C-alpha cells in the first residue's frame, strides 16, 4: 500500500479550491432557481463545491452536452460545405469540483458504452482532459442507494482526487489516479501536510466512510434485482407499476448514466447546424420508425425498457448496472416514483403493496 494523503482543515480546503479556480478552467455546482448544476465558475463565492446533496443535474452534460453541435454547414449553389463547430475546444484541461461519488462513478459506467463499437472521440477528449475532484458525502439522503450497487464506494477510483471530511475535523485529500497525483503536485498543496501510508489518516477516513455508509435508508441486493428482472419481461406487473408514471422523461434527463440522443438540424438562410441532443426512451415516439411502426407504443413497455436497460441489458453487455444509485430521478419525479422501490419490490412479489 502506498497511499499519499494531504491533510488540511476547512480553511485550507477553501484555499485549495480558490487556487484551483484561479489556475484552471473550473466547473462546480452552482445554484439557480433552487437547482444545483455544474457550471463554469470564476470565484469560489459563486459556487458550492461542498453542496450537501448531490446536484439536481448530473455532471453528464460536461461530457455529453445537452445539445452538442456536431457540425455546421453551408449549402448554396457552389455546393455544401461542412465545417467543425467552433465551440468547445475539448483540449484544454479543466477541473470539476464537488462531484459526488455517484456522478463520478457514472462516468466509469458510461465509458464502457462510449468505448464500445463507435468510439466517441469528443467524449474521450473531454474525459481525458478533465480532473475530477470529489468530496465524499457525509450522509445519504432519502433517495440515495449508491452503496447497494456493485462497486466499492470506499475505494473508488472514479475520481482523480478524493476529499474526505474526517470525523476529527481535519480534511483529507487523497489522489486516486495518476492524473490526480500529478495534479496535486506543486503549488496547490503547499499549505497542507503531506503524509504517506498514515494509519491515523486512514482510520479517520474509514470512520467517516462507516458513518456515511451507515446512514443509508435504502439497501438492496442488486444481484437479486438483476436476476429477478431478467425473468419477468412478460410480467403484467409492469403495467401496474408504470401506471402512475406521467411519462415526463425527467428521469432520463437528470440521470447521470442515460445516454440516448437524437439528431436534429436547424437551418437559417443557407447556414445550418446539426445537433446531438438528449432524448429519452420514455418518450412515446422514441422508437417510432419511419414506416410508422412503434414497438413500444404504450407506456409500460417503455417503462419496462428503462428498468431492464438499467438493471439487465447493460449488465449483460458491459458487466455493470446502468444505475449508480444517485436517486436523482426519484427526487425529480413529479409524482414521486422511486426507481428503488420499483426495482427492489418488482421481482419478488405478486402484488405491489
Amino acid at each position, binding site marked *: 500500500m502506498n497511499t499519499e494523503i494531504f491533510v488540511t482543515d476547512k480553511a485550507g480546503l477553501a484555499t485549495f479550491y480558490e487556487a484551483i479556480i484561479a489556475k484552471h478552467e473550473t466547473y462546480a455546482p452552482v445554484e*439557480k*432557481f*433552487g*437547482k444545483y*448544476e455544474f457550471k463554469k465558475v470564476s470565484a469560489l463565492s459563486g459556487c458550492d463545491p461542498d453542496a450537501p446533496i448531490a446536484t*439536481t*443535474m448530473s455532471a453528464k452534460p460536461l461530457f455529453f452536452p*445537452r*445539445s452538442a453541435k456536431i457540425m455546421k454547414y453551408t449549402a448554396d449553389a457552389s455546393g455544401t460545405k461542412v465545417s467543425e463547430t467552433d465551440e468547445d475546444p475539448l483540449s484544454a484541461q479543466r477541473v470539476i469540483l464537488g462531484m459526488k461519488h455517484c456522478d463520478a462513478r457514472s462516468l466509469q459506467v458510461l465509458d464502457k458504452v462510449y468505448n464500445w463499437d463507435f468510439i466517441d472521440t469528443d467524449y474521450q477528449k473531454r474525459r481525458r482532459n478533465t480532473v475530477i475532484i470529489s468530496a465524499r458525502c457525509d450522509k445519504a439522503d*432519502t*433517495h440515495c442507494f449508491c452503496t447497494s450497487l456493485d462497486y466499492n464506494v470506499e475505494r473508488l477510483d472514479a475520481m482523480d482526487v478524493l476529499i474526505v471530511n474526517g470525523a476529527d475535523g481535519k480534511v483529507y485529500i487523497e489522489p486516486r489516479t495518476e492524473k490526480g497525483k500529478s495534479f496535486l503536485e506543486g503549488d496547490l498543496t503547499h499549505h497542507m501536510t503531506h503524509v504517506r501510508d498514515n494509519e491515523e489518516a486512514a482510520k479517520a477516513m474509514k470512520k467517516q466512510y462507516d458513518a456515511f455508509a451507515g446512514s443509508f*435508508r*435504502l439497501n438492496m441486493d442488486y444481484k437479486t434485482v438483476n436476476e429477478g428482472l431478467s425473468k419477468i419481461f412478460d410480467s403484467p406487473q409492469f*403495467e401496474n407499476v408504470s*401506471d*402512475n408514471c*406521467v*411519462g*415526463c*422523461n*425527467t428521469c*432520463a*434527463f*437528470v440521470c447521470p448514466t442515460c445516454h440516448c440522443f*437524437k*439528431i*436534429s*438540424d*436547424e437551418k437559417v438562410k443557407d447556414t445550418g*447546424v446539426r*445537433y446531438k*441532443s*438528449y432524448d*429519452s426512451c420514455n*418518450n*412515446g*415516439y422514441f422508437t417510432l420508425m419511419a414506416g410508422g411502426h412503434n414497438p413500444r407504443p*404504450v*407506456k409500460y413497455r417503455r417503462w419496462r425498457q428503462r428498468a431492464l436497460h438499467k438493471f439487465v441489458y447493460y449488465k449483460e453487455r458491459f458487466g455493470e448496472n446502468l444505475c449508480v444509485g444517485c436517486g436523482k430521478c426519484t427526487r*425529480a419525479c*413529479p*409524482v*414521486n*416514483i*422511486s426507481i428503488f*422501490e420499483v426495482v427492489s419490490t418488482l421481482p419478488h412479489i405478486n402484488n405491489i403493496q
Partner: protein
Amino acid sequence: MDYTNQIREIAARLFSENKIDVFVGYRMTGFDENQVPVLIRDPKEVPRLVFNDKSVFNLTNYLKHEHTRGKRVGLVVKGCDSRSLQLLLTESQVKRDRLYVVGIACEGVVDDAGQKYQNCQECVFPDAVVFDEMLGTPKGNGQYQVNADIRELASKDLVERRAYFEEVFENCIRCNACRHSCPMCYCAKCCIDQESSTLYNGANTTSAAFHALMTWSLHLAGRCVDCRNCEKACPSHLPLHLLHKWNEQVIYENFQEHLAGVHEGDRGAFYKYSLQDPDDFIM
C-alpha cells in the same frame, strides 16, 4: 384537510356497485411524507388511498393515459383540478358519463416545508366546479388577484426582465416534464416534437427552449388552471407559473374576465371573441 376515510369509503362503494373500473387517487410513497398517485383497479387495494394536504398532483393528468382511456374512472379533484377536468370535458377529451368525480372543497396543499403553495394562497376557485360528490364545506369563490411574482417582475424594466428570462430559458433542459405533467397537454403528438413541422426545434439549446416555452405557454393561454403541475415537475425548478399567470392576467383583464375551466362549455380564450376586444394596440 384529511378526507382519507371518506375517499376510501367512496372508492369501496363505487367498486361494490360496479360503477367504476379504476379509481385514481393518492397513496403514501412509502419512504417519506409525500404521496404518489395511484390507479386502483382492485377493491382490495382501496385501503391504500389517502387524501390530505400533501395530495398535490393534479390527477386529471391521468385521464389522457392509456390506463384510463375508455374506462369508467373514479377520480379525486381539488378546485384547480376540477377546472382542468371541466376543460377536458369541454374539449371532448373525456366523457362525463364515464367519470365519477369526487370533488374536494380544497383548503390548499402544502410543500415539503409545510408551507401552502403560492397558487393555493391565491386560489380563486377552491371548491371543485365539477363533481358527483363533494367532500368538505364549500368556501365559495375567492377574489381574483394579480400574482405577487408577476407584480414584482412587471415592475422591473425591460433589460432586467430580458436578463431574467434569458436565464430561465438557459436553465431549461428541454426534458418536457412540464408538458407531460400538464393535464391540458393531451395532444397525440406535441407540435414541438413534430419533426415534419418546422416548429421542430430538436436541439436542447436556449433558443429552442425559448421557442418551446413560449409556444407552450401560448397554447395554454386561457386554458391554464394554475394547478402548477408543470412547475412542480420541472427538474430545473423554473418559475413556469410566471408565463402562465401573466397570460392569465392579460386575458382576464382584456377578455371579459375569462378564467379557464370555470364555466361549462367555455373553451379557451382564443376560441371565442368579442366585438369589444381591445383594438387600441392595432394601428
